[in-house]
């Protein structure tokens, strides 16, 4: 029995409550989480869906005070990659979902319309996911492991990125992508960089971070993260994705690209990948139903192959801008553009 009190805030603090499936109780991740979040109230549950999938949840408020749910994934450890995402030329593109939802709160994130809850589910049986993906090795697949979350942002609680790094040492036929907006490189220093791990860092202009990427590190911190990663032996990918059509876009994106290459040696990165905002077709309706209102969504999107994206005119303007700016620093084979 614990008391949850905060004199300064009306809402409980993040992870004030941890819901733990009985079956998940004795996994190392559960023990680690409990040892770190000592002050949280523990509530035992039978199945994560009893908390995560109930109706009437307030997604936006939960984003401000997410609870943690520790569960066991019982089937389907990986999925085919979405056509909304770049497969970087790999025929076999998959994603693994060992965590659902993200500690960051980006206004454009597709997760807002995807799950009934903003609470974070960690599937503690990561070894089952790793073993299952081992079975794909003969396909030489590309596996994105930080797809429905930012795995590195939760590394202190889960250690999952470390597990994927160790997995890469032993499974060289599988290319693993860890995409992140985190800035704490010390979480990766215990491990030697594997050749088949793509460390992809998403960057945005500071104005966009400030207005639309709540809780994420500022641009300079992410740049420092990339610099440390390079020093440590990684060849990171830089992702400018999604590119948004916002006021002063020319200035913002030109300044962003200049700032990146003022600080980072273009020869030391694998590539820069950029793409316009892309959202599932029914996303806006779901957001409206949930009372999610943002300037980003108040935009006349066009529907293309079952998804929403920028209207042609704006896409062309932004594509030309980014391509021209990036070409000043990178050869064409290091610039990746993904469009619907």
């Amino acid at each position, binding site marked *: *029995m*614990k008391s949850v009190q905060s004199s300064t805030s*009306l809402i*409980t603090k993040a992870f004030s409550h941890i819901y733990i499936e009985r079956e998940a109780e004795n996994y190392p991740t559960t023990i680690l989480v409990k040892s770190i979040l000592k002050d949280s*109230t523990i509530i035992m*549950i039978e199945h994560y869906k009893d908390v995560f999938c*109930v109706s*009437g949840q307030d997604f936006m*408020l939960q984003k401000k005070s997410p609870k943690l749910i520790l569960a066991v994934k019982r089937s389907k450890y990986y999925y085919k990659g979405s056509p909304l995402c770049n497969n970087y030329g790999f025929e076999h593109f998959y994603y693994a979902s060992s965590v659902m939802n993200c500690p960051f709160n980006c206004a454009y994130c597709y997760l807002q319309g995807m799950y009934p809850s903003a609470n974070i589910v960690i599937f503690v049986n990561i070894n089952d996911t790793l073993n299952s993906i081992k079975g794909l090795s003969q396909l030489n697949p590309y596996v994105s492991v930080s797809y429905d979350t930012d795995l590195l942002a939760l590394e202190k609680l889960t250690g999952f990125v470390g597990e994927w790094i160790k997995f890469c040492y032993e499974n060289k036929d599988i290319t693993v992508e860890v995409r992140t907006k985190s800035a704490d490189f010390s979480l990766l220093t215990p491990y030697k960089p594997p050749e088949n791990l793509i460390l992809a860092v998403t960057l945005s202009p500071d104005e966009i971070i400030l207005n639309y990427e709540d809780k994420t590190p500022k641009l300079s911190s992410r740049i420092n993260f990339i610099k440390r990663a390079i020093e440590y032996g990684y060849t990171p990918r830089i992702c400018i994705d999604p590119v948004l059509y916002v006021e002063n876009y020319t200035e913002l994106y030109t300044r962003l690209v200049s700032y990146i290459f003022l600080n980072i040696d273009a020869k030391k990165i694998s590539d820069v990948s950029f793409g316009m905002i892309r959202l599932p077709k029914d996303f806006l309706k779901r957001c409206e139903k949930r009372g999610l*209102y943002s300037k980003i969504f108040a935009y006349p999107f066009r529907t293309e192959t079952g998804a929403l994206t920028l209207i042609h005119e704006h896409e062309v303007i932004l594509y030309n801008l980014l391509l021209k700016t990036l070409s000043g620093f990178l050869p064409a084979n290091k610039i990746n553009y993904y469009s619907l």
Partner: protein
Amino acid sequence: MHAYIIEEKTGCNLLLEANSALLVKTPVKDDIFAFIGQEDSVLYINKITDPYTGKSCYPEIMFAHPFIENEIADNSIYHLFLYAKKSFILRNIYFFTCPANQREKIYSWVKNRLLHIEEKAPKFTEDEENMIEHISRGLILTQSMRYDFKRLCMSKKIRDGGLVDVLTGYINTSAGSKRERSIIYDEISSKLNLVNY
């Protein structure tokens, strides 16, 4: 905003009590449902189990509070929670136990919750509402066009902070035929959709 507080009394049927309260006044979004059960200690309930089926439900603890949390096993309280969930948002359903002489603490916390409910959805001003209605009638818009028109107006308002500048040009416009309506509606839609930074 309104708080529906159901207090357990000896021999009372909880579902009947709740039903009566909801019959007097129909709950609207953001109304609060609070249950106060009879016990010797003040507890904020975070898990309710039906002892007959072993099934549990979980009131969401979203707001800071000064109470001790615990779980409870009680068939009628379990069903009361399920009943409340049909009419109230999860974050606005609170279950407590409390001795009769200490209930003031709970009333005061619930009252404080009522004072801090925020309206998040953007709204049209009265002027904007009137203009939208006037134009819709002038153009004899169908129900689906009216819905679409309001949606476009809201997007424009969220994006640019206002929409009177666009609507003013159409306030005295009327359509004499479906074709004319379609031409004018397309024109107004493209103006509302115009994003040019």
